[in-house]
């Protein structure tokens, strides 16, 4: 027998167990990954409790479905042509750094497609209580107050300014909220009264629930609605090149 030949030997129970370690590890890793994917994408009742810290509901949540997106209406905050053939509905969290990044990407989209009235940007709220407690929801209310006091234009001016100055990750000093109101030309006293009134709590909760019902698991979560009504889900702050191609596809819908 050659010197470097592997020694044939009888397999002991311990060695047999060792041999099973590789397939075992593969199976465990597979189960972990599959489990994470499954629960990450389909456990809606779980996500309801998890992301938003709301009490878990006894009734079964509807399966995530883009068709459950609340219809775009005059109550929405729309940038660009409301009758545009393509609409991008964004569910956003003001304290999420990726939403801040995506806000700039969407401004770029509107510069290219908004001027011709081809694309409209619809903004909805999706504050993630567990990651950005209190502040994200409060800032969503501030957006609504800006819209109430100054109309659609002030809503967007307020949003642009807040996304511009927030350091994200729950870092915005809440004293900035009335300052932004002043900056965009709103009545600060009325703004402050609105902010503490609680009148938009239900609206923000409805937006959040709608985001999750359509499959939103994180922010930014967007749905691109094509010319033919076909819906495309878009998760995260994706590059401009991807969104541009997606818009072009949505524009060509029959």
């Amino acid at each position, binding site marked *: 027998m050659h010197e470097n030949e592997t*020694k044939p030997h009888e397999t002991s129970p311990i060695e047999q167990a060792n041999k099973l370690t590789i397939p075992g590890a593969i199976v465990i890793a597979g189960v972990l990954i599959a489990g994470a994917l499954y629960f990450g994408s389909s*456990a809606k009742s779980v996500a309801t409790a998890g992301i938003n810290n709301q009490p878990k509901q006894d009734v079964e949540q509807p399966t995530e479905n883009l068709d459950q997106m609340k219809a775009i209406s005059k109550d929405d905050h729309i940038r660009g042509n409301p009758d545009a053939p393509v609409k991008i509905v964004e569910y956003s969290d003001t304290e999420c750094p990726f939403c801040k990044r995506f806000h700039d990407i969407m401004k770029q989209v509107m510069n290219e497609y908004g001027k011709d009235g081809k694309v409209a940007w619809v903004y909805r709220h999706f504050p993630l209580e567990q*990651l950005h407690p209190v502040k994200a929801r409060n800032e969503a209310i501030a957006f609504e107050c800006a819209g109430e006091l100054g109309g659609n234009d002030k809503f967007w001016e307020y949003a642009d300014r807040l996304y511009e100055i927030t350091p994200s990750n729950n870092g915005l000093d809440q004293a900035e909220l009335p300052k932004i109101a002043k900056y965009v030309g709103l009545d600060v006293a009325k703004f402050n009264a609105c902010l503490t009134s609680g009148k938009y709590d239900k609206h923000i909760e409805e937006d959040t629930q709608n985001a999750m019902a359509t499959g939103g698991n*994180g922010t930014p979560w967007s749905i691109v609605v094509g010319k033919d009504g*076909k819906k495309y*889900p*878009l998760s995260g702050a994706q590059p401009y090149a991807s969104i541009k191609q997606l818009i072009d596809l949505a524009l060509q819908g029959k």
Partner: protein
Amino acid sequence: MLFQALQKVFRKPKYILLAFITSVVIFVFATWLPNIRLIATIIGSSDASFSQKLGIPISLLGSITTNFTVLSASYTVAIAILFGINIAMLVYFMKRKISEVKQSGTVTGFAGIASGILGIGCAACGSFLLTSGLTFVGVSGILVFLPLAGSEFGILGVILLLISIYLTAKQIENPAVCKT
């Protein structure tokens, strides 16, 4: 010892190719993960041309610069590269039929990739994998107490993969049973 083992494995081009392909697959998986539904919709769409079916998924790879922090992008790339190296070394090792050696490196390697995937899921706000997974076992609130909001899992993945590579290299350099 590690360097010698790496040299031994990667002097054969097929192992370089295997490591490269594995790394690319892991990287693509990580960047596409949040948008699997979109990719499936586009590929299955009769409206989309062939170039769109190809172009949109490819452009989504660019999300490594927009949908990841510097930290999460770094460990995602590191996990992809280390996993590729790890797989190539394990295949080299198995081909030599050194079945008697301890399998701890393999276990650590798979634990590393599993942990890394949890970390990858944490890259976006809402950490859709981790939040949902942990919520299932009722401890999603743990995210609030993690200073890096879940990136710890990605870093743990890198560490486990490094340990796995080290253990595998050690086994390649010190085959356990050679008869004299």
